[in-house]
């Protein structure tokens, strides 16, 4: 008898879930050990984090505020993944959406009830325009969208910095590096949490339905899973790729619009708070599922909020980033290990 480790093609759901939970636990444990080594008291920090996140409605509201952009950027990345594309540019599309929505809000007069939908559309359009060139380059010249979407992030970031400190700088002189306060706010429905959150959740549900319950969604799933099979079945791969990538960009643009109109109220450099990059982690945690994005974003929002609490306790931002990285790292290992099982086999050979 010999013991062999075998790989199974798809992991059992229970095993996968256990692996996930263990991964997150191990990541937190590792982080705790490192913090303890630097002289901090991890138990005290953990209880502090838990009480300030879940112990008060303020903590939960903060989480809710972080949740909105994370759901949408996560959804943006997950949507692109459906057709096998990696949108690393949700960050840039977020900026472009925030920028376009701000322009509409600042320079077009109108009642809020009309202006908010208009800003929503502007945000979506901004994100769409920002992914347009990478999309066409991928569709017609097979240029890797991984690189093009990533590089455009820097362009968008600097563009917004420049606009917010230059042409669009608050004329009243009250703010140093932001635009004037937007005249239209996304209304709040619970404490400081605005209606962007339900909008984001509804969008996730709609996108999930789009992929599960439409012919178009079916074609995208086939094409994303195996372009050869799509060609075999006579499905138009290029057309689907273009629409899906543009949709991905538009969703990230909406995230930017909701952030500027619901949470920050002024366009400023650094407004994205890395939400675009965190969206990649959310999508990976969600394994590309549009509904799973909500759960992935919730986990990420709690981690981010914990990070803010930790910072008040003297833990640096990089430590917090390292903890999120650890979680993703361990999760990836856990997901892979969930595919293995240990089996006893007869010894081979003569």
């Amino acid at each position, binding site marked *: 008898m010999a013991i062999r480790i075998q790989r199974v093609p798809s992991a059992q759901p229970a095993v996968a879930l256990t692996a996930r939970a263990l991964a997150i636990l191990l990541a937190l444990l590792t982080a705790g050990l490192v913090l303890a080594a630097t002289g901090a008291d991890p138990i005290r920090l953990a209880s502090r984090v838990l009480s300030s996140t879940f112990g008060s409605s303020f903590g939960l509201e903060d989480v809710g505020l972080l949740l909105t952009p994370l759901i949408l950027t996560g959804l943006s990345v997950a949507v692109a993944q459906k057709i096998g594309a990696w949108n690393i540019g949700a960050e840039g599309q977020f900026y472009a959406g925030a920028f376009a929505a701000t322009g509409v809000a600042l320079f077009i007069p109108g009642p809020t009830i009309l202006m908010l939908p208009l800003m929503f559309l502007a945000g979506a359009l901004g994100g769409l325009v920002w992914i347009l060139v990478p999309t066409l380059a991928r569709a017609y010249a097979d240029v890797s969208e991984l690189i093009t979407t990533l590089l455009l992030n820097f362009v968008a970031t600097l563009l917004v910095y420049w606009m917010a400190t230059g042409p669009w700088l608050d004329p009243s002189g009250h703010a140093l590096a932001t635009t004037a306060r937007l005249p239209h706010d996304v209304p709040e429905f619970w404490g400081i949490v605005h209606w962007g959150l339900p909008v984001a959740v509804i969008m996730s549900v709609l996108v999930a339905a789009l992929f*599960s319950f439409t012919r178009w969604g079916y074609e995208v799933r*086939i094409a994303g899973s195996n372009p050869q099979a799509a060609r075999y079945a006579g*499905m138009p791969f290029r057309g689907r790729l273009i629409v899906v990538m543009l949709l991905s960009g538009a969703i990230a643009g909406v995230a930017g619009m909701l952030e500027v109109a619901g949470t920050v109220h002024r366009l400023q450099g650094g407004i994205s708070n890395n939400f675009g990059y965190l969206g990649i982690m959310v999508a990976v945690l969600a394994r590309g599922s549009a509904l799973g994005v909500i759960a992935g974003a919730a986990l990420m929002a709690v981690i981010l909020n914990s990070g803010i609490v930790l910072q008040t306790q003297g833990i640096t931002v990089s430590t917090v980033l390292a903890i999120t990285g650890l979680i993703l790292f361990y999760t990836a290992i856990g997901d892979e290990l969930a595919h293995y099982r240990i089996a006893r086999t007869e010894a*081979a*050979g*003569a």
Partner: protein
Amino acid sequence: MQTDAMPQQRYEIAPGTPPIVQLRGIAKYFPGVVANQDVDLDVMPGEIHALLGENGAGKSTLMNILTGIYQPDAGEIIIDGYSRVFSSPVEAIAAGIGMVHQHFKLVKAFTVAENIHLGWSETPKRISSAALEARTAALASALNLAVRPAARISDLSTGEQQRVEILRVLTRNARVLVLDEPTAVLTPAEARELFRALKEFVARGNAVIFISHKLDEVLEISDRITVLRGGRKVETIAAAGCTEKELAKLMVGREIVLSDMRKRGPNAAPVSPQPVLQLEKVSARGDLGNLLLEDVSLGVHAGEILGVAGVAGNGQKELSQVITGMRAAASGRIIVGGKDFSAASAADFAAFGVGHIPEDRLHSGLAPALSITDNSVIREYDKPPVSSGPFYRPRAAAALARTIAEAASVAVPDFGMPVRNLSGGNQQRLVARREMRIASKVLIAAYPSRGLDVGAINTMMRYLVELRDAGVGVLFISEELEELLNLSDRIAVMFHGKVMGVVDTARTDIEEIGLMMGGQRHGAARVEA
């Protein structure tokens, strides 16, 4: 194509020298499949030994056992007279056995020198790239294989990449070189270059095991030939004095049992006078732009099975793609149901009623990571009941998937599970049944029995007969001559992208087809180069 440049000196074996490789009673079983059973093989120093057999005959499995990738379920590996057990390829390489796979295992972004030295214990710990390249050049000239040490792999032709792969194996002091269908990716000139290098290699007392299913090159290059069939050894014969005809006979088996599948029942549809699908001087290019289909003219009539014989890689794949809209024809006309389909898309062909069982089902006929349901409805997702308007109905899709799985007698525990979890045979049956549903006019079946066991093959053949009797035109591509003779009304033989001739099955035999498979035109006495 004997060339004078081939080194003629032979390696002299001292009396009593044991075979360099000896396999005794090797068996390997996979779930539901006997890959190898009772296989014996002796390879002497200085010998090029060909391993000949159809696809699925067990050639690659046997070599994977010899090179430590698989462990045999029974049998013994004897190297230089000593019994050995290889639990990994590393141990096999240490014993001097190296393999060059069909798909190269090189790092494309690295240079030749870097690839040669990658993962090698003799690579110096600290070395400049210039020194690395000098080392590579020295090794290459010592082994008489011309490579460009500083070139990146991605810039090399396939032939050059193969040479790097061979050099990589030889630098590890391999004495036995196993090559898995090495010429499949080479041009004729590159193949000649390779043969010269192999002859030189064995002249130094080494051995080559050469896996192939091409009769002509096996006769040209090897000293002895072992023929495998259905996982068992048929015979080992000397190449000298052997003919392609004999080899073809050995490959497909001496006894060809002609069953009555060509006979039609009283209710069978008659063969239509006009072809339902017709190709007129159709040419097509491969993915690399080379002409792989040349001036092919064929007609498939409704109610008949037209077999396509030929060694794999002689244009059959391109043929099946051209007549299903997956590949554009470079020239010529394709007429389907009286209409010009030369520029039609895959969707147009499917809509007309052309079903297609593709050659590599997992890569082009299925989306492996998606569910069995998703994969079952790929041909009917845009029609009711699976779709209504723009909507896709998962429940209706699941119901259709169940119907198809039942018809294919595939037991599916969970229709939501990825289709790649099904066995190869079940995938094949599922695809076949799925395609039969839409094949109201024509079915293109490329190697439908590949990877199936005998019982499943019979079922598959019955499927095709069923369609024929229902008045569907079937184009049946296969390498198994026995199958083709049992089933087809007529047989077209392909060689190097051309049709060598179309013969009436009732008035032909395996020898005539074998000669055409080797490049002889129907009715011609002359062998084409």
